[in-house]
């Protein structure tokens, strides 16, 4: 399989970028092409960037609560796509309750602060393969 392409971005005014950059580097070092969209995104800019970049997975990094408001908006936009791009969320402030809620709106994987790299990579690979298979 060719390189997995993943978009990583942060929504709204959350400016805790270092963790997202850290994850981006880790994924790069494991052979993925990371399109890094940085901060100050809205669900619309994330979706548009993901489409233009033809990514296999969207990763949202979050370190404040505002993603909880944006995520349902993003998932709703994605559902309108013929083959919705899978979404993963990672962050330090995600509680068990949040995790359940994210699952309910269709987020494929949620990574808390304790998640190890292998788990993140494995999950992204699996989602990317399924997405590519579905889009052929």
């Amino acid at each position, binding site marked *: 399989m060719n390189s997995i392409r993943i978009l990583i971005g942060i929504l*709204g*005014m*959350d*400016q*805790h*970028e*270092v*963790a997202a*950059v*850290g994850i981006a*580097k880790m994924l790069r070092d494991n052979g993925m092409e990371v399109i890094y969209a940085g*901060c*100050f995104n*809205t669900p619309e800019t994330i979706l548009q960037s993901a489409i233009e970049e033809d990514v296999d997975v969207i990763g949202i990094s979050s370190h*404040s*609560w*505002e993603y909880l*408001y*944006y995520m349902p908006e993003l998932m709703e936009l994605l559902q309108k796509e013929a083959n919705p791009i899978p979404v993963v969320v990672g962050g*330090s*402030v995600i*509680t*068990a*309750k949040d995790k359940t809620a994210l699952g309910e709106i269709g987020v494929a994987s949620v990574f808390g*602060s*304790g998640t*190890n790299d292998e788990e993140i990579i494995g999950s992204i690979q699996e989602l990317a393969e399924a997405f590519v298979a579905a889009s052929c």
Partner: protein
Amino acid sequence: MTRTSRTRSGIRLKSNYRPDEGASETLKTHYQDNLGDPGSYPYTRGTRDNPGGGWIQRELSGEGDARRSNAQFKYLLEQGQSGVDIIGDSPTQSLMDPDHPLAKYVIGTQGVSLCRHDDYRELFDDIPIDEISISSSGPPMFTVASLYLLAMERGISPASVRGSVLQFPFYAEYCGYAYKMPFDLHLRMTCDIIEFCSKEMPKFHGFLEDSYFFSEAGLNAVEEAALAFVEIRHVVRTLMKRGLDIDSFAPRIAILVNCSMDFYEEIAKIRAMRRIFARMIKEEFGAKDPRSMAVVIACHTSGLSLTTEQPANNIVRGAVQTVALGLAGIQALEISTFDEGFRTPSKEAHLVGLRTQQIVDLEANITRVQDPFGGSWFMESLTDQVEEKVLAMIADIESRGDPADLVTGGYFKQFFEGAMSRYHQNVSSGEVTKVGLNVLQVPEDEDKLLRDVSEAKFEPLMERAEQLRIFKASRDQSAVRESLMAVFKVTSTDENIMEAVIGAVETGATMGEIIGVMREASGTPYDPYGHLTSPIEG
């Protein structure tokens, strides 16, 4: 589980220290040169001789709107807090009004929403701004402008207002407070504020160097101190190039440091920083006034040192850090509260933080003897080693070029990214021990204590956007426009910007508008996020 034999900045610790340590031999012979009594040059042992004086005890406040935050102040003051400290929500910290489309889900959630003079009026309602210290972690330019106006309105002299504003022109853009403006404009704002305060509000620290927030990227003590000094030195040089006398502003330079769990090194860091600062200001910048050489050190304990696992453990961490700071001698303190990993402090966490300070101060009587570590073979040796490493790092950074070029060239951005990934590696490898996170974990279903408080959420104040729109429509439009034009014009000159900013704030112009026209005057978009258009266009 390993016990490390090195400090976080890599200094090797011995199993015990003896009288023949390098520093120990000169303890007596060079006492005045290297240490000095508390309150005398080079201030290694403290900037004041004030046994039992404690420190300004405060907890970082601010949530929702100004009224709610004012209630937080009053509650904490009733509980014995001796100063107030305010932080804005993320739009406020980024100089954005709450009616900006990007702000909607985060208005008031991580601090108070402030954008106009009316907000500051409400925030400091019934707070005696000439009697207690007002510390602002919010936008420095607007805090100073509003405090100045507020003093005038209350008929008190702005010269009697005490407190501080955080300044972070070098590193802000990379560490969570994006101003989205050219670096030279940000630096100029910093210098204009300091210059203004030195003339109009001489008791107010217009320059509280904020090494806390950037060191939260995972920097060690040496890196934190070195980067703080690189920034201070550049600001000082810039101010002196304007023709300002060093003794006109240096007495009001202070540093807000971080405090991690590396107990000894944090104490050594603070002692070393006082000495470095004193010698630098005197010998390199030629200060004559002893007050210029004695730097006030305030502290905010490390949020990064806390865990979301078992939040109650964070109370212990805060207490240990407070003891370290009490031993090091500091002038003001805020503890990162036990719910830090989840939210801005809850009322419960605020009180625990304040009580922690009070217990360490009042019950343990820890500041009665000043610099109790002074003369310790170990501590003096460690202080010397930290100092040496900090000085070497400052020299190394400055040898790479003009610090301003390093900022715009992304040198520090890379530095922070590197530090963060190194820190995460050290946590995941266990090199940095975090109880409950990488060792001694408890199962999730047993981790219940204080979770309810920590995880309680409050809704963003979305209605504030509409309130602001109504407010904006109700202003004297031509006065607002004229005052914004004045800000625009003065930004294109070399004059101090503060007078025009105060004038605009007085007409009801908002922070976002004022910053927007300043950006425009320097050739960047009014709204760097591409959503708004300028009110002075055309």
